[in-house]
């Protein structure tokens, strides 16, 4: 019985005898595993970032959006929804005008206008840092008041200035600035969430001449309420328009799922591309092992003559392949993790090396060692000792 430890020792001596070749063989696996780790980390990072940004919008949210202008969400729907479905804690209508022209006394800028309700701070979990948010009464009376993002304040009035009480022209109407919302930074898709003007949706709807509400955001108090309310609101609009596809009602959980599955496909795609280089690394191992078997024919003959069985020789060469692939895999994980960190700091997007991707690529490299090492090992073990001894 030739023990495993002895096999590993004998295999190690075989590998250590040719260090440069060993390194070059490993390099294929190192690059393969490092590519998998680094590229998958990009996908995983994108997923984590998308998830955290969706969650940053608030929690337990539901968006309601008609598919096409034939289906109108109206003001009276809001009261009905509120009365019928107690799970809904807040309803936030949304009207928007992108890249509208806005003027202060000194500057003219293009900025996104967001029309919303008085519950905005509660739903979006984003209050004002100075001044105040507009009230329900402001919304009802379509008052021309505006709350600005910090970037917009800087663009319109200059850095560090106090905009409260000042007038701006939005879509050729005069608004009074009453507050500045808390800073939030860069959002999904890279837009600046602090470069915007928030006004009552009623006011913006009137200026834009809308006779409908483009979309609603509902907030519930729990995830269970959110699931119930999603179904209830869907049923409400199906009944109203007699069309199952008239209005899309999507909870935040569903959105997270959708985004999660998209980024997962992205991650898998990146992983698959990187796996090709890992497979090439495996072929490199097979190539070198075949060369090694033919170079060491005499050694194999000697070992067989003094009592090595087929299994002993098979195990020796298989373990050599495994040492190459597993060591290459381990180094590849380290290089890949460094690469992920490098990508993150150079390219500026988030990367995430997960335990999963480490485990998967490590077992992948182990599998490659077995698959690509088996055939050369089999060839070695099948050598006839008489023929092998005769070879120089």
């Amino acid at each position, binding site marked *: *019985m*030739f*023990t495993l430890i*002895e096999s590993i020792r*004998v295999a190690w*001596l*075989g590998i250590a*005898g040719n260090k440069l070749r060993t390194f070059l063989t490993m390099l294929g696996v190192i690059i393969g595993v490092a590519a998998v780790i680094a590229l998958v980390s990009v996908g995983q990072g994108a997923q984590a970032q998308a998830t955290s940004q969706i969650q940053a919008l608030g929690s337990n949210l539901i968006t309601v959006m008609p598919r096409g202008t034939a289906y109108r969400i109206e003001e009276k729907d809001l009261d009905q929804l509120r009365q019928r479905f107690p799970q809904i804690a807040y309803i936030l209508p949304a009207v928007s005008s992108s890249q509208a022209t806005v003027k202060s006394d000194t500057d003219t800028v293009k900025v996104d206008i967001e029309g919303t309700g008085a519950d905005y701070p509660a739903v979006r979990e984003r209050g004002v840092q100075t001044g105040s948010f507009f009230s329900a009464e402001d919304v009802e009376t379509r008052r021309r008041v505006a709350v600005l993002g910090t970037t917009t304040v800087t663009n319109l009035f200059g850095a560090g200035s106090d905009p409260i009480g000042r007038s701006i022209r939005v879509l050729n109407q005069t608004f009074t600035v009453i507050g500045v919302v808390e800073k939030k930074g860069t959002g999904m898709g890279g837009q600046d969430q602090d470069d915007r003007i928030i006004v009552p949706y009623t006011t913006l709807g009137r200026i834009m001449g809308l006779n409908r509400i483009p979309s609603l955001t509902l907030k519930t108090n729990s995830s269970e309420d959110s699931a119930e309310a999603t179904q209830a609101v869907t049923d409400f609009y199906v009944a109203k328009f007699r069309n199952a596809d008239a209005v899309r009602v999507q909870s935040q959980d569903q959105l997270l799922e959708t985004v999660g599955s998209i980024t997962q496909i992205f991650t898998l795609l990146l992983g698959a591309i990187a796996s090709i280089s890992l497979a090439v690394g495996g072929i490199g191992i097979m190539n070198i092992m075949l060369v090694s078997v033919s170079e060491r024919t*005499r*050694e194999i*003959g*000697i*070992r*067989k*003559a*003094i*009592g*090595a*069985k*087929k*299994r*002993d020789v098979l195990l020796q060469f298989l373990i050599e392949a495994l040492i190459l692939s597993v060591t290459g895999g381990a180094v590849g994980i380290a290089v890949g993790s460094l690469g992920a960190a490098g990508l993150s700091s150079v390219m500026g997007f988030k990367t995430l090396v997960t335990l999963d991707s480490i485990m998967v690529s490590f077992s992948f490299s182990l599998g490659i060692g077995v698959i690509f090492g088996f055939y050369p090992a089999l060839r070695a073990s099948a050598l006839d*000792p*008489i023929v092998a*001894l005769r070879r120089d």
Partner: protein
Amino acid sequence: MQDSGGMISIRNMTKVYGTGDTAVHALAGLNVDVGKGEMVAIMGPSGSGKSTLMNMIGCLDRPTGGDYFLAGKEVGRIDDNQRAEVRNQHIGFIFQGFNLLTKLTAMQNVETPLIYRGIGSSKRRIMALEALTRVGLGGRGHHRPNQLSGGQQQRVAIARALASQPSILLGDEPTGALDSKTGQEVLALFQELNEEGRTVVLVTHDERVAAHCKRIVRLSDGVIVSDEINHGRLDARAELVKMGVAAQEVADD
């Protein structure tokens, strides 16, 4: 013939390479017995079946027909793995070209058959050191083959063969790659080992090597044509002394 229980008993052994008209009958119904403690030379010109017989005795190959009993056990019809086991336990090979594993030290080379036998490392080291000491290389265990002379390498190979306490020491032209003096030293070692009771079979075409054996078997066309006791057996050590080399030096080298 000296016989204290047959170590090797070969009956009607045939070995045919190829088939039909091109078939070569390397062994054609060969019979031979070697008793425990013998020292036999197997001789014959090339093509006589000498190498084939050596492969058969060494359990490297499987005969086409006939029986082969080694240390009382039928080994002619066993499978590859069983043959590997028999080689490991009963045969101590000594080759013309030494056939040491070049990347391993002398010690590791001697240990290798013991590894395949599954002997633990500490016991293995004791056995290997004992064998190396027996051939006079107890202090050279950490040397690699390329750091040793040809004679020393062949002695490491003999130590490797000895370490596993085989039933027979089987030499294939063991002095063929050595100059006459070191060849003589190796023959002296074989004679000593034989005097200690070990069975030695040397396959050779060299009459001088055969002259040191107790019995000479000659082959031709796959059968034994002569099998006689070597009455004028040479004593390798006495010859070394004649050559002006002190016996002690040989042992210590």
